[in-house]
């Protein structure tokens, strides 16, 4: 068995604390209830204190980037849904927009509005799933069921729209394949009205709960500077006080049309990240209700040829996925298949911060931090 070796043993002499004779090496995962899939974390412990960690990833590696080189642009579109499978719509949006940019076409306004609505719904779904699992990791089992109950409503809308619930493949290069179904706007409005009090309900269970606050305050601290240096993006970066959201910084789709705020935190701890994500759900609801009010009439597909052959060139396009900056670097050689598709996965990069965030804390904090980073192993491993 050529088992993966940990570098923890190798770099032992570098760190003074590693000389402690009481250390214990524990293997957490890949089959562990709190690693959100097949993440394996090797922990070096002194009692309960974490001296160092090493993530072993790749158990879910499917070679998405390699597959992309052997599929046409259109054929590859469904594959991106399988990366961050809880935010499939965002993945599709990023990919479609990147290819559109490469083709130099623009999706029509109506398509952009539909994209925004679905993407924001998906962001709420993703955050709800995060909240449920994160709370479960910290020991509060009840929020999980509440969030799944409400996420169901979003999935129902997706299902009505495109027939799929999770890996939606909702968008096409050049716009949307499907016109909204009859009653789409009403459904979305109903959902907004339904879920707004529910978010308060989650907060009621957790935000003022002493144990929750104690478990999350000053846990997994990361400053804005450190976050930037580690390339951390998304809510984790914003919770550290960096007001940066690609929807505002480099707007795409129809985002310039909407009025919304970027919630930020101050301490960069797990509690702030929780608050930021809760606020983000509210902001997403705001965007959705604006979009649904103003959704324009018109075509939903731009003029794109049946066979896509983008001109020779390369493009990097990124969007604000629920987990952070999701980028696609696509190189075209002028043929029908991309020469290279590189995905910049937010989960992968964010996971890198785990080691820094948990050093010196307790085992229970590792769980909390893995949860708060909101990783999806499908995206980490691709």
């Amino acid at each position: 068995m050529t088992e993966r070796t940990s570098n923890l043993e190798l770099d032992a002499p570098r760190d003074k604390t590693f000389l402690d004779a009481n250390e214990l090496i524990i293997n957490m995962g890949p089959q562990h209830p709190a690693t959100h899939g097949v993440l394996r974390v090797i922990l070096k412990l002194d009692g309960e204190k974490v001296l160092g960690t090493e993530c072993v990833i790749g158990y879910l590696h499917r070679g998405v980037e390699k597959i992309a080189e052997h599929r046409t642009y259109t054929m590859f579109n469904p594959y991106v849904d399988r990366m961050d499978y809880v935010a499939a719509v965002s993945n599709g949006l990023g990919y479609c927009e990147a290819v559109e940019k490469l083709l130099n076409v623009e999706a029509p306004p109506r398509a952009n509005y539909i994209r925004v609505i679905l993407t924001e719904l998906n962001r709420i779904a993703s955050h709800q799933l995060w909240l449920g699992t994160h709370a479960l990791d910290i020991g509060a089992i009840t929020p999980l069921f509440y969030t799944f109950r409400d996420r169901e409503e979003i999935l129902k809308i997706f299902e009505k729209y495109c027939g799929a619930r999770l890996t939606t493949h909702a968008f096409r290069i050049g716009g949307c394949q499907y016109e909204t179904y009859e009653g789409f706007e009403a459904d979305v409005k109903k959902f907004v009205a339904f879920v707004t009090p529910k978010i308060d309900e989650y907060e009621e269970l957790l935000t003022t709960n002493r144990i929750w606050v104690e478990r999350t305050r000053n846990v997994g601290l990361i400053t804005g500077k450190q976050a930037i240096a580690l390339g951390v993006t998304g809510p984790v970066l914003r919770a550290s006080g960096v007001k940066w959201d690609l929807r505002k910084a480099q707007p795409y789709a129809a985002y310039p049309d909407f009025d919304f705020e970027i919630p930020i935190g101050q301490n960069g701890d797990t509690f702030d990240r929780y608050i930021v994500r809760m606020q983000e759900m509210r902001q997403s609801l705001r965007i959705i209700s604006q979009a649904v009010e103003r959704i324009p009439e018109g075509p939903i597909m731009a003029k794109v040829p049946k066979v896509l052959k983008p001109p020779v060139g390369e493009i990097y396009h990124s969007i604000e996925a629920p987990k952070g900056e999701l980028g696609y670097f696509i190189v075209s050689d002028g043929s029908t298949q991309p020469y290279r598709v590189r995905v910049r996965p937010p989960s992968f990069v964010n996971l890198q911060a785990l080691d820094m965030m948990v050093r010196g804390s307790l085992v229970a904090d590792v769980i909390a931090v893995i949860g708060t980073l909101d990783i999806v192993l499908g995206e980490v491993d691709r």
Partner: protein
Amino acid sequence: MPEDTKSPSPPPPGNEPKPGAEKQSGAAQSTSSADKPAPAAVPPKPAAPAKPTGPVPVPWDSPMVAKLRQQYGSGIREANTYLRQNYLVVDSSLLPELLQLLRDEEQFDYCVDITALHYPQREKQFDVIWILYSFARNERIRVKTQIADGAPAPSAVSIWPTADWLEREVYDMFGIIFEGHPNLKRILLPDGWKGYPLRKDYGIIQQDQEWVQINLGIESGQ
């Protein structure tokens, strides 16, 4: 089943005809034919077989580029804008210094991504690409360089800690060695794996049969 025939993927179009072209923007596999020395006029359209007229790279003029050119002269091979995205093509020898400078003086404090491209037909087979972002300027650039197979690229871990895993992934997938990386080993594939899957000469269903047989106890993963 090994021959899915697709494995050696379609030869990259524009580039390979001019292997090792020094002065050329070999790096810019993109605008293959648009291999103008940087500040030159609008390059000719790509001899793209397919589309009518796509957008073309135009020279990128900015104080920063001017400064860099002044400092490094011809080391900056290209500074272009394509589809409103700026990129630099530079000599690999300048890189450590240039990346440091980009972070310290030009405020590119966020390394978005590090990746690579493989052009088997070229003499210097690999493009290594750093995608950088500056919060202060709200600006994104790409820095590209060409390196030969087996030649090391400079590691950026000391500049941006985030480069750690990103470089490991490039090493894992392309076999590019990053000099100065503290812990360069495979990240997504198992440690004992042989071969670098994202190279163009690695077939799509190819795998390390030996590893699969030893570790999984099956004949083949296919």
